[in-house]
């Protein structure tokens, strides 16, 4: 259909940046061939909140996140920080804009030590000729910063020289989350931070997630766990089949109404459309 593209553009232009939001991704569309995985979604993140992104499998949650962080290229969509349009087309650009992302299953390199994992891609080089010319690393400084970070976040991993694969799922998630505090200037995006964790470890990870707020971060978190949404998040955004269905304050919803939004149980007309 020849007027598909203009229609999309008009819809995108309709969404305008609003004050009070640290970060906005408006009119985000991502297609895989003929499949529209994310369809003109507006995401607005308020300063200092934890925003849950929920939806059934295939709702487009992970794709939305990847399209925002530059891990996937967007077909449409404009990003704003504090109402200012920003250009983000690669993971590196997202990082320098102040977005730190913890991807599910893609957070750590098993073979690297804790310190090397945290500083991967942003290593501190020595402040001398060897560092500037040959990229010699300043291990002592990186180790000290990691110890200080873990102290600040109350993460009790002292053996930072050990490879990541030696740690439990909870410890690994703690390491991954700590990266957001080390480098995330504004926004932390977490893709199912408790996916592979047991009950006790999940609780620890979620405590760590909420503590990110204390460190000046606003958080976007994908989750499947409705308990976590109700206990730890401020607002919840519901996606279904690539579309933005609703965004609600957590105080306005309960488990049943959330599930209804996710599955579309209360909206037979929407299911037909």
């Amino acid at each position, binding site marked *: 259909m020849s007027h598909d593209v203009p229609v999309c553009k008009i819809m995108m232009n309709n969404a305008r940046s609003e004050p009070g939001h640290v970060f906005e991704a408006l009119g985000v569309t991502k297609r895989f061939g003929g499949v529209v995985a994310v369809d003109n979604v507006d995401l607005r993140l308020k300063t200092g909140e934890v925003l849950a992104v929920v939806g059934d499998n295939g709702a487009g949650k992970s794709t939305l996140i990847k399209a925002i962080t530059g891990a996937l290229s967007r077909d449409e969509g404009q990003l704003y920080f504090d109402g200012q349009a920003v250009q983000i087309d690669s993971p590196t650009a997202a990082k320098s804009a102040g977005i730190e992302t913890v991807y599910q299953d893609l957070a750590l390199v098993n073979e690297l030590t804790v310190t090397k994992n945290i500083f991967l891609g942003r290593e501190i080089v020595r402040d001398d000729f060897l560092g500037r010319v040959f990229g010699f690393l300043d291990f002592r400084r990186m180790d000290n910063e990691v110890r200080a970070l873990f102290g600040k976040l109350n993460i009790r991993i002292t053996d930072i020289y050990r490879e990541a694969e030696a740690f439990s799922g909870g410890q690994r998630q703690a390491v991954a989350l700590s990266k957001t505090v080390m480098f995330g200037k504004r926004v932390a995006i977490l893709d199912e931070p408790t996916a592979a964790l047991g009950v*006790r470890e999940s609780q620890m990870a979620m405590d760590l997630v909420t503590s990110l707020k204390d460190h000046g971060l606003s958080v976007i978190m994908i989750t499947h766990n409705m308990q976590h949404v109700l206990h730890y998040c401020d607002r919840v955004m519901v996606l279904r089949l690539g579309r933005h269905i609703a965004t609600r304050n957590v105080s306005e919803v309960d488990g049943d109404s959330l599930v209804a939004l996710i599955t579309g149980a209360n909206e037979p007309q929407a299911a037909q459309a």
Partner: protein
Amino acid sequence: MNEQVEQGVPPESQRLSRDALMHQVRQIGQVFLALVAIYAVFYALSEPFRNVNTLFTIMTQASILAILACGTTVVLISGGLDLSVGSIFAVVGVVVGIMLINFELPVWLAIVIGLATGAFCGFLNGMVQVFSGVPAFIVTLGGLTAYKGIAELLGSGQDLSRFPDSFRMLGTGFVMPISIMFASALIIGIFLRMTRLGNHAYAIGGNEEVARLSGVAVARSRVIYYTIGGFMAATAAIVEVSKLNFAQSSRGQSYELFAIAAVVIGGTSLFGGRGGVGKTIIGMMIMQTIIVGLAYLGVGTSVQRIAIGVIIILAVFLDMRNRPKR
């Protein structure tokens, strides 16, 4: 914050730290012990092994392949593979020969041109892979035959021999080849352990996607690792040409396989992310000890090859068994 986070870890922290260090020491210690044990067996069985000169002979014989294998180590750690280094070796040998004999260039200039040639061949390997997306195995398999062809074109019908004395110095006797081997290992070892780019080799080999998402310049780094591989092949070629006092396009045949074998015997993972250049040197020493030892015992080359083949499989088997479960 939750006070319960990883309860019980603090009292163990000291022990864990020592464990991590011991793990490293144990790994390289194991391979070294294997070398000592193999040496001891031949020491007991064979009279000439009791002469210290034999040790130097083995090290000298190991040196050329070990220099080349230093580059292979970097490529394998980064999760890559380079089957073409043996042919790059041949190209560089012929190029250096032509520079010295046909063009009568000064020795230093011939060496520089040789090293640049090798580095450029490696660079091409990397660039073709990164931009075509064709797997390393195929690209460097193509390189294996293509570079071989180039070496033959350049070297056919030429007598590239009888080099100046100052060039012959590099490969003659024990001291220079062994020194160049250790210097290569030291420099590559420092590169891998101490520099940003070296650390990225482990990251890319460990999990390329995580490295990419973390902002590592994966493609650019890979090209550099292949360039290093070509450069080390060139260094090895120069030492061999100097030692033999002639250059021929037929040299370097199967060197890439011997290098990969030594890297693997040393305990560097074929799948990337783990390993080190010290292990490679020991791995190459193990291979040469077996070859020389079996030769002294009167065992023919065919049986030597069988032995090396079995050891390669054994080394990978042990590596896979010792790996921590994911």
